[in-house]
């Protein structure tokens, strides 16, 4: 590692950790990732992630044997929670991994061809998506497809990319008239060079900041679809369908609902704090 590289890492860590909250967020996120990866090892009752019925142990409140109690079929809530984390995180990462490149390409083309029909067509399509409430659109899309985790991700991706298109469009259309872009055009650089080498380095800060902030919101959206029965189907555990199962038994069997709900809150909080820190590195205002 060169000294400059080392120095820049130290400086970025200093900016990231300013205030301390982002470090807490980072710890939460790392713990959740570790729990998700090692769920089969950590979970006290790994078999409970499937369709198991143990009537003798059903509806038990939290105890040392069942940290978060058991559900109506006698399955360990803590074990099911651990197994649901993987799908939850995958949802956040995959949705963004697909929607961010799509949004970037659409936004950069619309911004680069500002004031032409290309901008008009692309940005009006973006406007149409943005004008429908996100959740309503996702519910509508998910409900016309077979309900499972993959299709709920597709539904969220479809309504998520326009935000990145608009973000990129805003940045690129203001950079469009910078002299270095003009110079690249005049000297004969291709569109690929201009997009990847000139625009992308200037847009990446905002995109990365928004991505880390967005993972949490995507996860909420995924949990909402799953709560509505449009995500992962039982018996496979997901935070949303676990809450849905537990809601009927409130307030007596509070542990069925509270623990998955708190988990969602922790995940979203963690990613948001990390997002704020990433924003501090790049001097981007969080939303």
């Amino acid at each position, binding site marked *: 590692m060169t000294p*400059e590289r080392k120095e820049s890492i130290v400086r970025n860590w200093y900016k990231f950790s300013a205030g301390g909250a982002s470090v807490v967020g980072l710890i939460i996120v790392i713990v959740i990732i570790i729990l998700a990866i090692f769920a089969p090892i950590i979970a006290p009752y790994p078999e409970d992630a499937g369709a198991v019925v143990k009537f003798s142990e059903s509806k038990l409140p939290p105890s040392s044997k069942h940290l978060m109690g058991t559900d109506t079929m006698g399955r360990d809530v803590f074990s099911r929670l651990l197994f649901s984390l993987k799908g939850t995180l995958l949802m956040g990462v995959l949705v963004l991994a697909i929607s961010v490149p799509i949004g970037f390409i659409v936004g950069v083309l619309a911004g680069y061809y500002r004031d032409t029909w290309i901008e008009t067509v692309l940005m009006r399509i973006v406007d149409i998506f943005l004008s429908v409430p996100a959740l309503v659109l996702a519910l509508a899309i998910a409900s016309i497809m077979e309900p499972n985790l993959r299709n709920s991700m597709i539904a969220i991706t479809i309504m998520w990319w326009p935000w990145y298109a608009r973000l990129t469009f805003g940045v690129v259309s203001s950079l469009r008239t*910078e*002299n*270095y872009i*003009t*110079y*690249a055009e*005049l*000297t*004969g*650089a291709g569109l690929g*060079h201009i997009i990847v*080498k*000139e625009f992308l*380095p*200037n847009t990446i800060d905002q995109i990365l900041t928004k991505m880390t902030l967005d993972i949490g919101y995507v996860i909420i959206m995924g949990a909402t679809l799953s709560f509505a029965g449009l995500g992962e189907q039982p018996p496979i555990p997901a935070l949303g369908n676990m809450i849905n199962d537990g809601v009927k038994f409130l307030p007596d069997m509070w542990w069925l609902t509270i623990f998955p709900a708190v988990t969602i809150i922790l995940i979203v909080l963690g990613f948001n704090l990390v997002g704020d820190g990433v924003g501090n590195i790049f001097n981007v205002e969080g939303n």
Partner: protein
Amino acid sequence: MSEVILELKNLKKYFPLPGGQSVKAVDGVSLKLFKGETLGLVGESGCGKSTIAYTVVGMYGATEGEIIYKGTNLAQKGYKRNLQQKGEIQIVFQDPGSSLNSRRNVGKSLELPLKIHTKLNKQERQDRIDELLELVGLPVDFKKRMPRNIGGGERQLVSVARALGSNPEFIILDEPTSALDVSVQAKVISTLIHLQEKLGLSYLFITHDLSLMRNVATRVAILYLGRLCELAPTAEFFHRPLHPYTQMLLSSIPVATDEEEKVKPAQIISEGEIPSPVNVPSGCTFHTRCRDCMDICKVEVPVMIEIEPSHYVCCHKFKEGEPIAAEVE
């Protein structure tokens, strides 16, 4: 004089406005640029200097007229410049803040023209970048620096080095020093002069700073509202300016010493402001501010005449073949 590199023939560039009118930014400019010279193009803000630069370099298409570069008309409708022409005609912009991508280091910015216009491999490109930096008098380790970490003058020198990357013959300098501190200006100018001698470059030097032209330009052209007023070799231009507008400009240069004060023409208070290029005055465009305005000036557009060898002027006061009137001194 030597070979003509660039010739503008009656070049016009209008920008249409909503409502049928148009901004006549450049309205019939004809001039020649010879190999190895520096042609200073001087005028007030909004007179069309930069529009000429951008039209020649290919940012805008010309509305009318011809831009003949080495025998090819670049302004022809539908004519796409080939890669070689894009490399041979280069530009250095006015604003050093926006001419380099703030997210790419100096070396990467310098590599772009090399990637496009040369067949050098990766290592050869790095060597060439070192060479280019040395040419403009910057240390080699600048290629790892980011634009925000170097000064305005240094950024401008990097822009010059970048323009040299494609081995150009002709560089358009669009007010390359007007955004810089005076102390830094001198360094950039002397580097430009040095490069011209070494590489045989031709410059179209656009500026509003007449006193700078005295030391830099081979010939000076004065532009007013998109039309040329006067074009003369530098010594002749400063010694005997003919056009009333030129005289007004020269008399308004601030001077520091008594010797300079003596050479300076008598102070002519400039009247009025530059009219809008949307509603150009009839006849001679300068008649609204001219102290020698005659009746003919308001009606008839004057034509450019060669009043003395290579001294051109565009004013009704002068007729081809007639001796220059005494009132000039």
